[in-house]
């Protein structure tokens, strides 16, 4: 999958840094200690010279949301793939509470939690492609449904590939029920907020890359249950910001398999 830079990345000279060990002129004054581990110094150098960095993993649907939002806005950023089994110092520094991805770092300051980051991006890059509607009532509807995706899609969906037996079935049924409600909310509109890709679309579409995994391990077809939703998914993918930000479903499948092996399901 192509990298997500929309323009030339500000090249962080990784090799050069290893040779020279530069002292970081970090905007995190006061936090930076004298005796830094090299990795932290290297990472802080990146965050202080590149205005937007995204700490993320390719397969994270939450990370995908932030990527799509940045792409929609034409915002340049550095994608920093994190190893979640061996969390790096910058991730722990920037998200001490949850220690999770995604973390958006803008001018040295972190924004954690994907939907919060998407709202932040919408506020800051407000000159193009608004994601949330401008009317407070419409915004409330968007926030409601994005919150619904967080609670009622991710958790049941997860059961379809991390559980078996009754728990798997419960997950499957919960997921289908949620997707049908979302289908109902979408109605005949091309996108959730109307004519263009918006906040709820951004909240939900990343899970499309996880559907193949859900279907394989859960042994069901989402398209059979929710054809309109799948049509919406395919429509979303026509947007470059989405197609650039979603990994290949095969990549997600491999990720699922690795975790399943760890859970003793394979």
């Amino acid at each position, binding site marked *: 999958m192509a990298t997500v830079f929309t323009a030339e990345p500000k090249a962080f000279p990784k090799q050069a840094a290893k040779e020279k060990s530069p002292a970081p002129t970090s905007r995190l004054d006061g936090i930076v200690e004298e005796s830094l581990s090299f990795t932290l110094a290297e990472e802080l150098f990146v965050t202080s010279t590149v205005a937007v960095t995204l700490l993320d993993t390719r397969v994270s649907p939450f990370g995908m949301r932030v990527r799509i939002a940045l792409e929609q806005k034409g915002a340049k950023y550095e994608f920093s793939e994190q190893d979640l089994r061996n969390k790096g110092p910058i991730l722990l520094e920037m998200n001490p509470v949850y220690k999770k991805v995604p973390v958006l770092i803008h001018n040295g300051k972190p924004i954690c*939690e994907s939907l919060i980051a998407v709202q932040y991006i919408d506020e800051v890059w407000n000159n193009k492609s608004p994601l949330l509607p401008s009317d407070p009532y419409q915004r409330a509807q968007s926030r*409601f449904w994005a*919150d619904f995706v967080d609670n009622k899609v991710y958790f049941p969906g997860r059961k379809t590939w991390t559980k078996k037996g009754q728990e798997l079935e419960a997950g499957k049924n919960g997921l289908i029920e949620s997707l049908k409600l979302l289908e109902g909310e979408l109605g005949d509109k091309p996108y959730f907020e109307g004519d263009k890709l918006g906040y709820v679309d951004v909240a939900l579409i990343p899970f499309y890359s996880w559907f193949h995994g859900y279907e394989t391990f859960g042994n069901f077809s989402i398209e059979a249950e929710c054809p309109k939703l799948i049509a919406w998914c395919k429509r979303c993918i026509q947007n470059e910001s989405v197609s650039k930000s979603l990994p290949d479903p095969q990549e997600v499948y491999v990720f699922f398999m690795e975790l399943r092996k760890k859970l003793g399901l394979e």
Partner: protein
Amino acid sequence: MKYSMAEEIKVFRSWSSRFALRIIWALKLKGLEFDTVYEDLTNKSPLLLQYNQIHKKVPVLVHNGKVICESLVILEYIDETWKQNPLLPEDPHQQANARFWAKFGDDKVLQSIWGGVFLKEGKEQEEGVAASMENLKYLEEEIRGKKFFGGETIGLADIALGWLAHYLDIFEEIVGVKLIDHEKFPSLAAWKQEFANAPIIRENWPDRDKLVTKYVAMREANLGKGTPK
């Protein structure tokens, strides 16, 4: 703009819901007049079920016929519709920060204290206490040096975490475990006092004795003792 007397604001709540209380606070802090519909959550009205088909819960706000559900969503709606006494700052990063702590409050603090401590006993409760302490430590760090999470005035995060300033004492009393003590969490303990006694907030706490009765029954029901409510 929106101060007209033709505004119709209605809040569906229960007498005890700490989530609905957030909405009452926000509306009163903005100086707004509204009607209240008290729901018996064991016997939900058809109107509530119609307004909140997805979750079937309180609070629900109805503003000039427009229905909004989910307390944090409602708070943002209120703040965006009525601009006086803002709950969120203007700076986007500070806004993100306020939202983060409000969400942390619900996802972590509430879950660990309610689900992990209040509804448990024995070893499970001990684990819940440890988890709650971890979460409270983050709040302590965030509130240090500030009067409110929102700064000088009550903000979104204060309202979201506000239940700690009244309901927590009740939970602590019932289970016999002190979570926010002055020594371990001095800044958080100070915030609790400040918030609990703030104008509007101090006038709207539900009756303490009634809450004790209710929560004792809930705890016993959850632990399989006594008759469920």
